[in-house]
């Protein structure tokens, strides 16, 4: 009876260790975190309206303008990468870039923002310093474990200049939000920017002229 119980416990332990060893993994590379979201106004008309304008800078959303400070812009080589890729995709869809906004049907506004997320864990209960035994010693609290990561988001809004909404406000008829984890490698970042912008237009074939 005891032998059988021990055998069973050993088997159960073996199963548990095996099971734990088969723990499922998640993302391994930073590009696996890339996300591309697009949305459009189903009442908007794109065909037959091929002229568009866009600035030659990418605005950086930092809250500066809301605080009355001058706007900041994304640095190179990222800004030109974003602008060039957007223009290439728009050309492929049959659009023509113009500098005169009087001729343009739409204006594209690219912008970028970064968010740094910080999380920490500190088990104060187990690592509480104190006296355990009379005359015994004490130790410093264990250092908390912190993790941090920064995400970058590219936002492109396509505003219709010819069909304002209520109160004569211009509204976006197409938007894309591209989000991903930022890492330090410039070459990889540029490649990912190009790939995700291409994907944004790939899933927006309704923009085609």
């Amino acid at each position, binding site marked *: 009876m005891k032998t*059988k119980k021990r055998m069973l416990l050993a*088997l159960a332990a073996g199963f548990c260790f095996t099971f734990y060893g088969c723990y*499922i993994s998640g*993302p391994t590379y930073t590009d*696996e975190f*890339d*996300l591309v979201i697009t949305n459009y106004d189903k009442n908007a008309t794109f065909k037959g309206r091929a002229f568009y304008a866009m600035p030659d800078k990418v605005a950086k959303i930092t809250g500066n303008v809301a605080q009355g400070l001058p706007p900041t812009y994304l640095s190179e080589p990222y800004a030109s990468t974003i602008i060039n890729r957007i223009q290439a995709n728009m050309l492929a869809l049959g659009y023509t870039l113009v500098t005169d906004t009087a001729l343009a049907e739409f204006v594209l506004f690219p912008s970028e923002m970064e968010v740094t997320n910080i999380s920490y864990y500190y088990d104060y209960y187990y690592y509480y310093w104190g006296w355990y035994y009379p005359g015994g010693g004490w130790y410093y609290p264990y250092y908390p474990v912190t993790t941090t990561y920064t995400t970058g988001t590219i936002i492109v809004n396509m505003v219709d200049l010819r069909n304002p909404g209520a109160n004569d406000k211009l509204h976006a008829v197409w938007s894309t939000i591209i*989000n991903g984890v930022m890492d330090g490698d410039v070459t990889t970042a540029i490649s990912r920017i190009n790939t995700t912008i291409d994907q944004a237009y790939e*899933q*927006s074939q309704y923009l085609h002229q």
Partner: protein
Amino acid sequence: MKKILFLIFLFCVSGMKLYAQEHSNAIALEYQVSFPSGNLKDYIAKTSWRGIGFEYRQNVTEKLFWGVEVGWNVFYEKREDATYTDGTISITGTQFRYESAVPMMVNVGMDFKSFNIAKPYASLGIGALYNRTRMDVGVYTLDKEAWHFLLKPELGVIISPTEGTGIIFNVNYEAGFNNSSSKAINYFGLNLGFVLNEL
């Protein structure tokens, strides 16, 4: 009337004695491979190679038994650059899909005629299925838990080359019914494990 009551009493006592004499129990530990079906297959199409089951059973008569069982099956699938469109919104990203199912049930079953060292059986489990559905896309996680009413028909065989120990092999179908908060969770199971008898 008194004779009838006495006969009924005698029958019950005999039955209880039979139960004590022929009462046998067993514990089984199984490795489970699961194949999703229905709504679960729409979410995760891949086979689960991560499954474990623990069962205790006790014979009521020579043929009939009852038992309790608990298991854990994990389904996983990575979908690369999948695009999903809902109305005017389209989302593309690598999706990591997880499904964790924990069936818990009471079983009732019947042993069939033994063939040498092999004893086939059939059983039906009734209980509850806890499941947790999770999807990681980008840096975001969508997480959902639900409980389902569960039915589990099973066909299997216990092969006992030596007295007291054996190997169990069975096929079953876990049917977790849908409810107001979650769709049905259904999958086929193929299980292989060890049995210890007469604990």
